[in-house]
């Protein structure tokens, strides 16, 4: 198919195809084809170009049988793993959405109530008559009728990126409650597009079609035409601070003129403080605002909710190792503290897992049909079992002879133990909440396999199953962690539960009971504790005050004793939970299938570091190219090295500040030096006074060409601003 738009830049047609494509702003490399050989070829020559890569090595044609089998397997499972990733990822997505919606529900309800009240207030100003309403200009009204009800939604988050989803949810929520909703961002309030930009955005969202003319009377007539025009129009401005003040002022002034005809209620996302509108808008605009304040949950609260739902509770089956969890926490704390970046990191971890772990597709199957796993398992393909037998955690534990049945048993055991762990963590966190312990911090501790091993050996529990570390190392670990454990979160939590007042303890037991509903053993213990405190069948019989009164009338010391005893019991219960159930995923056989562990891969994919890496590329290029000529050089610059590398190294030696002429001279010295073992003197000025050996002029000019080319190449990654400040000294 000819592309009319692509033809707009017909550069020299007579040049070869490749050169032409290189000079096109854009071109179609190829189109999707079911048969791989089919390539597009049209008359204009703007098609697939030759590829400069050298042909694959001839070895590729005669692959060994093993290699072929591996490729076939890889291809077969590639698709399965991709599907599994999609299933797991969409599950995580939907869970996060639900969790965040739950976190915001109360604020959303509050906002909705306020919107209704504001709408009633606008209606009470004055209802326009038919003729007034259908005119294409606003109704003349007094100042009180020109108030724009404005909800300032404090996001408590300097990064607006986390709030995009919140405002999207808020929009959906208000729409489901009968409001017309339009969502505008700071991009709509840019100085370049002016008032027309935001108005067009508003019209497009309300009228559901693109309108060329930016005229608010169109909106007025649309509102009039609506069957249910008895509903407010809510305009959500996501990020107030980033809007252009003058455009926003014009917008608000315009809305205030029309508010009787179009009952617009504005919601503004405020990242900083309530002063934000005052800083942005002039006073004549501010007097038209009738503000109210709403506050969203803090990022840490949301974070806890997400971590609980995704990483602690059994949601998708996917989990992360201790090191990955620590990395994720550090990334959240050090990077930008946004939930969005955390979720993205988690998704990349998930994608890495599914792209690296051959058996990860099993997770997808489990999600689709939980029940089938028992039935299907007997027929597990041979290669899965072979692979499984090579898993480190399997090999370590030397489980019974591997067949379909034992594999399924091992896998269901993995899931069971993980569920136990999750219940124990949730119980611990319930106490941790009283001490403001963040779940993410706690998670890092409860996922630590070394701590588990140390705990187990402390308690003289035989490390009957997977330990990950040989027994000889256990004592060392115990020593290492015995002190740090004391200050650890688990320790704090156990200590905290001893100090809890009776009322809080009662509530805690209630929550524990809810958490452990599916675990008879834990549930029973919680019930026992409850009965000690006077609960029966989940109902708390005597009043707390009654007890304390009764106790106090009897003997205050005795009551204290009772509550102390119960606290001790609760602490003992927690101890028991930690001892019995807090087994990190990494200490369970077959965990490799569900648990992502490669923190280095995650870091590389998540945080590109071009600034450092490109400079390292230049300085240590021989490590990447693995050439025989430069690898042995040490710190000596050799003429065989890349010109750009030589130049960059020289510039570095000069402390990033180099006289161009000196640079050239040093460069020339290196480049023209015969490949002998002359020692490079890095401390001495590389500018040679007079070289004894004369070079031919051809060599000289070549060196200067190399310099210019090297310099030009260096400017691609490094300019502007060029860190190697070139000092051009004029006479």
């Amino acid at each position, binding site marked *: *198919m000819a592309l009319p738009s692509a033809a707009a830049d017909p550069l020299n047609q007579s040049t070869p195809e490749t050169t032409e494509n290189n000079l096109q702003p854009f071109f179609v490399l190829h*189109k999707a084809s079911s048969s791989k050989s089919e390539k597009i070829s049209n008359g204009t020559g703007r098609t697939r170009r030759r590829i400069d890569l050298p042909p694959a090595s001839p070895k590729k044609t005669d692959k060994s049988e093993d290699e072929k089998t591996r490729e076939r397997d890889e291809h077969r499972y590639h698709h399965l793993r991709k599907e599994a990733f999609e299933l797991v990822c969409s599950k995580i997505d939907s869970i996060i959405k639900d969790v965040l919606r739950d976190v915001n529900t109360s604020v959303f309800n509050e906002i909705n109530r306020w919107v209704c009240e504001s709408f009633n207030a606008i209606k009470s100003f004055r209802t326009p008559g038919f003729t007034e309403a259908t005119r294409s200009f606003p109704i003349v009204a007094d100042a009180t009728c020109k108030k724009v009800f404005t909800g300032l939604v404090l996001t408590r988050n300097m990064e607006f*990126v986390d709030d995009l989803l919140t405002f999207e949810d808020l929009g959906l929520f208000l729409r489901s409650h009968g409001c017309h909703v339009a969502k505008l961002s700071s991009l709509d309030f840019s100085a370049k597009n002016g008032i027309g930009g935001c108005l067009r955005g508003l019209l497009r969202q309300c009228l559901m079609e693109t309108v060329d003319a930016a005229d608010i009377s169109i909106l007025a007539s649309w509102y009039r035409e609506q069957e249910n025009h008895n509903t407010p129009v809510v305009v959500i401005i996501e990020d107030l601070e980033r809007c252009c003040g003058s455009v926003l002022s014009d917008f608000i002034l315009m809305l205030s003129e029309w508010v009787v005809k179009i009952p617009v209620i504005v919601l503004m996302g405020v990242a900083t403080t309530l002063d934000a509108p005052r800083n942005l808008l002039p006073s004549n605009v501010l007097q038209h605002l009738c503000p109210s304040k709403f506050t969203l949950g803090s990022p840490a609260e949301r974070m806890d909710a997400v971590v609980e739902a995704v990483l602690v509770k059994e949601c998708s089956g996917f989990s992360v190792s201790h090191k990955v969890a620590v990395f994720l926490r550090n990334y959240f704390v050090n990077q930008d503290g946004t939930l969005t970046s955390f979720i993205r990191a988690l998704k990349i971890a998930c994608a890495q897992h599914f792209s690296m772990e051959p058996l990860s597709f099993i997770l997808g199957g489990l999600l689709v049909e939980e029940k089938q796993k028992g039935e299907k398992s007997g027929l597990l393909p041979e290669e899965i079992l072979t692979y499984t037998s090579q898993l480190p955690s399997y090999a370590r534990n030397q489980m019974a002879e591997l067949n379909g049945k034992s594999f399924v048993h091992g896998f269901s055991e993995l899931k069971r133990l993980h569920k136990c762990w999750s219940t124990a963590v949730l119980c611990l966190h319930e106490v941790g909440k009283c001490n403001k312990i963040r779940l993410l911090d706690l998670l890092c501790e409860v996922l630590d396999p070394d701590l588990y091993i140390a705990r187990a050996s402390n308690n003289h529990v035989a490390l009957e199953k997977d330990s990950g570390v040989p027994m000889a190392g256990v004592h060392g670990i115990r020593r290492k962690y015995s002190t740090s454990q004391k200050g650890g979160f688990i320790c704090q939590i156990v200590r905290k539960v001893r100090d809890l007042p009776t009322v809080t303890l009662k509530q805690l037991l209630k929550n524990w009971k809810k958490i452990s509903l599916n675990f008879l053993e834990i549930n029973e213990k919680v019930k026992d504790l409850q009965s000690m405190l006077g609960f029966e069948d989940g109902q708390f019989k005597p009043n707390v005050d009654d007890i304390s009164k009764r106790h106090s009338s009897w003997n205050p010391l005795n009551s204290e004793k009772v509550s102390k005893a119960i606290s001790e019991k609760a602490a003992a219960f927690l101890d028991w939970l930690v001892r019995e159930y807090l087994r990190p995923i990494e200490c369970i056989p077959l965990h490799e299938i569900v648990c992502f562990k490669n923190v280095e891969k995650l870091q590389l994919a998540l945080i590109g570091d071009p600034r450092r890496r490109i400079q390292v590329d230049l300085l240590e290029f021989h490590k990447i190219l693995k050439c025989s000529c430069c690898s042995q050089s040490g710190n000596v610059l050799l003429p065989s090295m890349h010109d750009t590398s030589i130049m960059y190294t020289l510039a570095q030696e000069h402390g990033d500040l180099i006289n161009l002429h000196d640079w050239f001279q040093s460069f020339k010295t290196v480049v023209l030096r015969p490949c002998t073992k002359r020692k490079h003197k890095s401390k001495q000025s590389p500018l040679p006074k007079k070289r004894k050996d004369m070079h031919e002029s051809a060599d000289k000019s*070549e060196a200067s060409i190399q310099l210019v080319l090297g310099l030009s190449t260096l400017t691609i*990654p490094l300019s502007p601003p060029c860190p190697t400040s070139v000092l051009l000294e*004029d006479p």
Partner: protein
Amino acid sequence: MEINNGVEEEEEEEEEEEFGFSRNYFLAKELGGSGKKSTRKLSDIDLVDEQELRAAASNIEPKHEKEVAALLNSYKSLYPKWVFKLRCGFGLLMYGFGSKKALIEDFASTTLTDYSVLVINGYLQSINIKQVVTSLAEVLWDQLKTKKVATSGNLSKVQQPFSSRSMDDVLAFLNGSQDKDCFVCVVIHNIDGPGLRDAETQQCLAQIAACSCVRIVASIDHVNAPLLWDKKMVHTQFNWCWYHVPTFAPYKVEGMFFPMILAHGSTTQTAKTAAIVLQSLTPNAQSVFRVLAEHQLSHPDEEGK
């Protein structure tokens, strides 16, 4: 904890390095100020014409050709991983020293045959992004037609050509399909290049990247390229998966459009440089220059006195 220590050590190293850079800078400044200035001048270097230089440069034998070729070949083993990430909805961002043009196009030609691929040469000076989006929509339209993925009702809706539709409409079309395996790949060489470097174009590229039917494979060369994007673009639109793939291949094509330092450039380059200097002035100073220029233009015969 161990990992914490590791991170801290790394951070310390980083700080040390940063400190090293700045220390070197001030040391060099001090030395420069101490009167020990070099007597050499720029004029000591013979400057040649850019065209001549480029012609002569083509005769110079490139270094490490064999190793570069081997390095490029070694990346082929990563292709399946890259395509997996694309299918998972991530964008690929390639960085590292050396031209990545051949590598990415080889990847696209050999591995992305199931998808249409559109290439944007970001190293060029000007690129019309609206044309790109229109072409992209046309390519997707073709793909949908041949694959018959979209319902017939959905397809018949498109009546007017994409070129006459608004940007939002075309983007909405690109964002339309729910089929996760039906997408068009956009290869962007030098997404940080001069033709794409402005904020507006980057916003537009981010919007394109966020469309459900588009996947981006891009390369960056500048060390500060990530500064082009804000959090929204990085986390929710581009959704980059970074890959460090130094190639050490010469920037043959990309370098063609970079002004050559130390060569006698053309007048357009001088004008551009002047414009950059002008932009850095205060608004007042700019208006003084404007008045001067207007005066000069309206009185062409007068000698500037």
